[in-house]
């Protein structure tokens, strides 16, 4: 088996990223070209491979920096909501508190519980972290800053989103702990019941925009109206569903620390636990990003550059999550499921009807 030809690489990779306007392509490409020319290697396949690796690293760094800022923002905002100051000792205004915590986790022992299934216990970590990081690969952040821009990006994002529950139930089983087991079951049940209304809501957006492509959805909103206006019901359903999906208070039943010690994460210690925590924020970030893209007009906005608008909106949505966390108690698991099946599913169907109606008679509303 030989390597694919130059043209084959181009059609997979270059047709999407190949436009020089995408900084996440052009910068890695120029770096790769510079390296290879320095080494006097003239292999286009290697060039593309290197471009891909460098782009991945840059994306990872961007996401990680954002997540660190996100955690800091949450701590500070939560502090304000709770009438306290939040972190303020380590670094300027406590910004490096996260790093301090990360180092603390790093020096902890990595414990594998006795009678735990080592393969399931450790592979779960890889699956959860990798799948969560992967979401951001399909979510564009600006017209000139994206990793891939596939036609089925929206569907792909939710497909990747839905990988985690399988890993979680494996983690719950492999930990050999009853709390973990219950947490794993809860996580799976909750994810399953909230996927349905969420995807139906997403479908209504797709019906209006006529495409699964994030960029085209955003462009459609820029030329018409943000989907939050016609699909306000869908927006609320999606907000609740995404909070349930990323397992934050009030829907953090899988790791409810009052009843199940830390749910399916109980037995994970040290850096493993830190990675899970980090992952949950990556998922929050991804959820907020998807919500911004499909309901809040994405990166469109006056004066400021698009990427800045994107981040402003993402942080605003995240603040909404923090606000919910600060003001609401936790919902019980059977109530969570009831809410999902009995209230959100009908509402999402109503929202779907509205979307279909607007699609047919949308000319009246300039849609």
């Amino acid at each position, binding site marked *: 088996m030989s390597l694919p030809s130059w043209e084959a690489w181009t059609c997979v990779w270059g047709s999407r990223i190949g436009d020089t306007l995408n900084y996440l392509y052009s910068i890695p490409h120029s770096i790769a070209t510079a390296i290879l020319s320095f080494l006097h290697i003239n292999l286009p396949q290697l060039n593309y491979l290197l471009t891909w690796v460098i782009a991945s690293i840059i994306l990872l760094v961007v996401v990680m920096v954002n997540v660190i800022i996100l955690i800091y923002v949450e701590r500070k905002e939560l502090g304000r909501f709770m009438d306290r100051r939040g972190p303020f000792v380590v670094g300027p205004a406590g910004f490096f508190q996260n790093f301090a915590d990360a180092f603390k986790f790093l020096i902890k022992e990595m414990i594998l519980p006795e009678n735990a299934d080592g393969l399931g216990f450790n592979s779960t970590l890889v699956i959860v972290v990798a799948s969560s990081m992967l979401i951001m690969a399909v979510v564009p952040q600006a017209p000139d800053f994206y990793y891939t821009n596939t036609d089925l990006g929206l569907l792909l994002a939710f497909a990747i989103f839905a990988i985690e529950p399988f890993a979680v139930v494996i983690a719950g089983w492999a930990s050999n702990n009853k709390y973990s087991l219950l947490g794993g079951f809860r996580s799976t049940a909750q994810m399953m019941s909230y996927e349905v209304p969420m995807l139906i809501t997403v479908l209504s957006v797709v019906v209006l925009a006529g495409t699964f492509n994030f960029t085209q959805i955003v462009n459609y909103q820029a030329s018409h109206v943000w989907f939050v206006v016609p699909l306000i019901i869908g927006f609320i359903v999606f907000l609740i569903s995404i909070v349930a999906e990323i397992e934050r208070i009030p829907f953090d039943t899988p790791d409810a620390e009052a009843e199940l010690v830390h749910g399916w994460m109980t037995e994970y210690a040290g850096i493993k636990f830190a990675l899970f925590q980090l992952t949950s924020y990556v998922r929050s970030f991804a959820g907020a990003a998807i919500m911004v893209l499909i309901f809040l007009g994405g990166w469109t906005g006056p004066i400021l550059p698009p990427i800045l608008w994107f981040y402003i909106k993402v942080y605003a949505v995240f603040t909404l999550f923090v606000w919910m966390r600060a*003001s609401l108690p936790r919902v019980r698991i059977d109530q969570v499921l009831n809410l999902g099946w009995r209230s959100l599913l009908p509402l999402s169907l109503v929202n779907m009807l509205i979307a279909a109606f607007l699609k047919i008679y949308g000319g009246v509303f300039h849609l």
Partner: protein
Amino acid sequence: MAMAEMWINMGPQHPFTHGLWTLKVKVDGETIVDAEPIIGYLHRGFEKLCENRNYPQIIPICDRLCYVASMSWDHVYVSAVENTFDIKVPPRGEYIRVIALEIQRIASHLIWLASFMTDIGNLTAFLYAMREREMFIDLLQALCGARMTYNYPRIGGVSQDMPKSFPQQCLKTVDFFEKRLKEYDYLIEESEVFRIRSQGVGYLRPSDAINLGITGPALRGSGVPVDLRKTDPYSAYPDFDFEMAVEKDCDVYARYRVRMNEMHESCNIIRQALKKIPPGPVLGKAPRHFPRGEGYARTEDPRGEAFFYIQADGTDRPYRVKIRSPIFVTVSAAPAILRGYKVADVPSIMGSLDMCLGESDR
């Protein structure tokens, strides 16, 4: 889907326990089939300890019965001694005791609110309640110099008169606190999520509550109007005009309402006491030699009916001391309340009972 039933040990190291005890729950899926509380991790042989100390030496260790409501336990001990030996307390002493007790009741209920809201997942209310508790702890500090273990009541009165600025500081705090209580209503009670977590959960029938010996806010939350400050008055309580907080819903929400209303009433009592307080000494005459005899006192602790029984044999030490802790009895009724609910309801139900392990393990 029927799952195999399994026992889950919740505790002794578990976030919901607020202390050191174990609740073994037998679950079918997530539904509780049976429960068994196990206590005793904090047993210090308190009653035996009292038998080896003379009467004034017991007061400071009564602080350690429950460090959330130390003043109440000091008070029930000294009033048991006063009942046993017929010691008269000057009226000013009684009034200062009532003020201290009511401040302690508010502080204790705020701790309860904090831990209860943590149990059902709202950390904001936890910090708010702790913030308000600080003001009342400051009041008690102004009164007796200590913040948690007060050692303030003495046999025959209280150790010292209150400072001159105390009434003003106290009134200011109470007024401020009543405004803050409204804020709690916005945060907690008007939240739909809080209501679905608390209403219809932890149903405790009134006749069951009486028969199982449950006292205090949990009993009043079941619609039984029993408050020893009213029904069996002690100290200076007959002088004050206050309402008994009773709710008829018998669930977690009712117990929450009872405690919130009690905080209002405590503010009310503090204001009246500061207005009516007579001048005079604060510490009466206590005998140097304690005769033979027996006696007891029961008071309305923040958690229920506190009771001290003392048998004196004529020496300087009690022959037998028996403490009735309200939580000791309440926790024994836990299986009856928990059966049929979900595992996720355990924190909210047990949190609504206001566990304190120092007093139940003794």
